[in-house]
């Protein structure tokens, strides 16, 4: 989906001379997209770096910081890619880490499906584990805060701040 938006944003600036009224219209025929029911989503290989950062996938890097697992997510987190994030989160939680940090520093776009993945991760880790999200800027921190998710879990400006705060507590 974010591809569509980028496509829309890329539309030729036909009126770049500074026209007063600018409009663009497009007909999209989403052929064969099924963001939800890819049975194979959960079979995607996930290693230290999973997927790639093309339009379809996220690049997720896993790092261990003491008892805390840090998942750094690069790309667009939308309804197409959120299952990949959820799958990686589930794998990380299988190791019963003391804490989980989702680092969205390199995330270009965060849609509602991505927010749901974060909420589910927070729920999954339960009261025993610490959970934090690293986000800054208009594409990630802003929508999280506007939707009130900063009241659900802690949002930190960078990974070091998150690790420090979660290690102390």
């Amino acid at each position, binding site marked *: 989906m974010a591809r569509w938006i980028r496509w829309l944003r890329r539309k030729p600036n036909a009126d770049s001379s500074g026209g007063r009224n600018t409009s663009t219209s497009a007909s999209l025929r989403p052929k064969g997209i*099924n963001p939800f029911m890819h049975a194979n989503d959960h079979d995607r290989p996930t290693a230290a770096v999973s997927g790639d950062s093309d339009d379809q996938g996220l690049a997720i890097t896993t790092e261990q910081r003491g008892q805390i697992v840090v998942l750094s997510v690069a790309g667009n987190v939308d309804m197409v890619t959120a299952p990949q994030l959820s799958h990686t989160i589930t794998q990380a939680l299988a190791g019963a880490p003391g804490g989980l940090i989702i680092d969205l520093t390199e995330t270009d776009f965060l849609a*509602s499906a991505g927010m749901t993945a974060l909420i589910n991760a927070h729920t999954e880790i339960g009261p025993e584990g610490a959970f934090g999200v690293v986000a800054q800027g208009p594409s990630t921190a802003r929508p999280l805060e506007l939707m009130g998710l900063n009241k659900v879990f802690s949002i930190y400006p960078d990974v070091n701040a998150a690790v420090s705060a979660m290690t102390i507590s």
Partner: protein
Amino acid sequence: MWLRSTLRTTDGRLADINLVVHEALANSVEHAYDGRVDSSGLICITARYVEKTRSLDVSIRDCGTWLHRAEPISGRGRGLPIIHRLCDQPTFTSTPAGTTVDLHWTLFA
């Protein structure tokens, strides 16, 4: 970027518009076309910006029937709250021929 060069508003507002339009498209895919693997549906997007009033209107029209799901598709359910929270004036019009989501923003400098 068409939005950035045309609208000359804050990065935050641009991000809001990007997200809301995305969520409206996602709704069309989810509700109108049922997220089917083999679905082939038409979605039309029209965007119009009037400099004089600094108003942006984005219209997203699909040709599907609005489905009221008992259970939302996994991972969804926050799309509409996002649209209502980050858009000044969203309206949803559903007819047997399809659903139109009209999004409106007034952009203050």
